[in-house]
């Protein structure tokens, strides 16, 4: 059990380390690129937008895959409530002064911009996943099969 936990920690470290190294080089290089002032806004917008979009996708799944459960109404309402909470928080934070508003004219422009931004960054992450997972499987299938049992 302990070994399994340490492996998970190792995987999380492996995921974070390359990003942290590149960001560290970005900060300490001769160009001394300080923390970008819009980074927090981008993080906040990414959290809220991906929460809302993923919530909509999950509601769609509830609707399309609920046949075996005779389409119960309660989880549907529960998810819509969870989604509504996300939308209200996004609306409140974007409307509130300059908290999450980036270089956009207002609330509606920011929300639409967030969706397009997620579309682009999601595509980038999907392509990166295709590359990394694809190459991993290519490596695994590239080796000839080992003989597990010799016939007597």
């Amino acid at each position, binding site marked *: 059990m302990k070994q399994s936990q340490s*492996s998970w920690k*190792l*995987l999380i470290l*492996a*995921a974070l*380390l*390359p*990003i942290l*190294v*590149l*960001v560290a080089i970005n900060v300490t*290089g001769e160009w001394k*690129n300080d923390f*970008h002032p819009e*980074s*927090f806004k*981008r*993080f*906040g917008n*990414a*959290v*809220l937008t*991906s*929460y*809302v979009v*993923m919530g909509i996708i999950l509601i*769609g*799944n509830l609707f*399309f*895959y609920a046949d075996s459960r005779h389409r119960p109404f309660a989880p549907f309402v*529960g*998810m819509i409530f*969870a989604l509504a909470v*996300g939308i209200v928080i996004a609306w409140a934070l974007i409307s509130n002064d300059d908290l999450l508003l980036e270089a956009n004219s207002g609330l509606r422009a920011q929300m*639409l*911009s967030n969706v397009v*931004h997620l*579309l682009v*960054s*999601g*595509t*980038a*992450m999907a*392509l*990166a*996943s*295709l*590359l*990394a*997972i*694809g*190459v*991993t499987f*290519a*490596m*695994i*299938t*590239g*080796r*000839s099969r080992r003989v597990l049992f010799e016939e007597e």
Partner: protein
Amino acid sequence: MLEAAIWFWIPLCLVPVGIWFSISGKAKSVGKLVAVIGLILVMVSSWTVPSSDSTAGGHLLLSILAPSLLLAYGVHGTVFGGNVPVGRLDSSARWSGAMAILTSLLIFCLMHWYSITPLWRDGEVNPYWIVFWPTFLLFATSLSSVAAVALASYGDNRLNESISLAVLSVAMAGIALAAMIFDGYMTTSNEFRDYLWLAAADIFGTIVGISLAIAAFAIVIWAYENSLPLPENSPPPTEEEIKHVVSLAKNHIGGEEE
């Protein structure tokens, strides 16, 4: 605004709806058709509604379509050209696949450092290119690193494969480092360094947001399932049902009918 809704936002909504219909099996071919038409309309939206700023996203998707398809073809070739039990391709597919992956990465690099950078209005670089490129590089570096460590720690005698994946991770980090040092054809290294921060914020934010949505979904389903009454016991089988089951079992075990 109405034009943007008709030519960009409604087609964008049609893509997941089409995929849902296709996957759920209710209207497979119609669902696929709707998703493909939606995606095409989103990609050409910079011509159908040039006044909308959102269409830059669709324009970028169209710009990266060719290298993305080449990457997918390459991955398919390298995976299924190897030792797979089903759907195995000719062994030459591995080499052509590897070449396709390298070529697609080269095209992405040329889109940054050569004159094929995606251009949008008035010859200006597409604003979402500088969002896509650092996000792709950072995420590919991170995932390759995870895959390398996972193969080394969970795999059995997979050190060589793990090293190859670590090399891929370092190569992607090297491309990101080069973009931080050398100016692109239409973008400066300073812009790239700025957007590296934003890409890191984007990646962490998206992962946190998706995790929160899945957690909310799990809580809702858990609460619903917990509220359901326990299923009632079914009545015991009748004599007739028991005889029927016994006769079926006898037929299968004894093979009297053969």
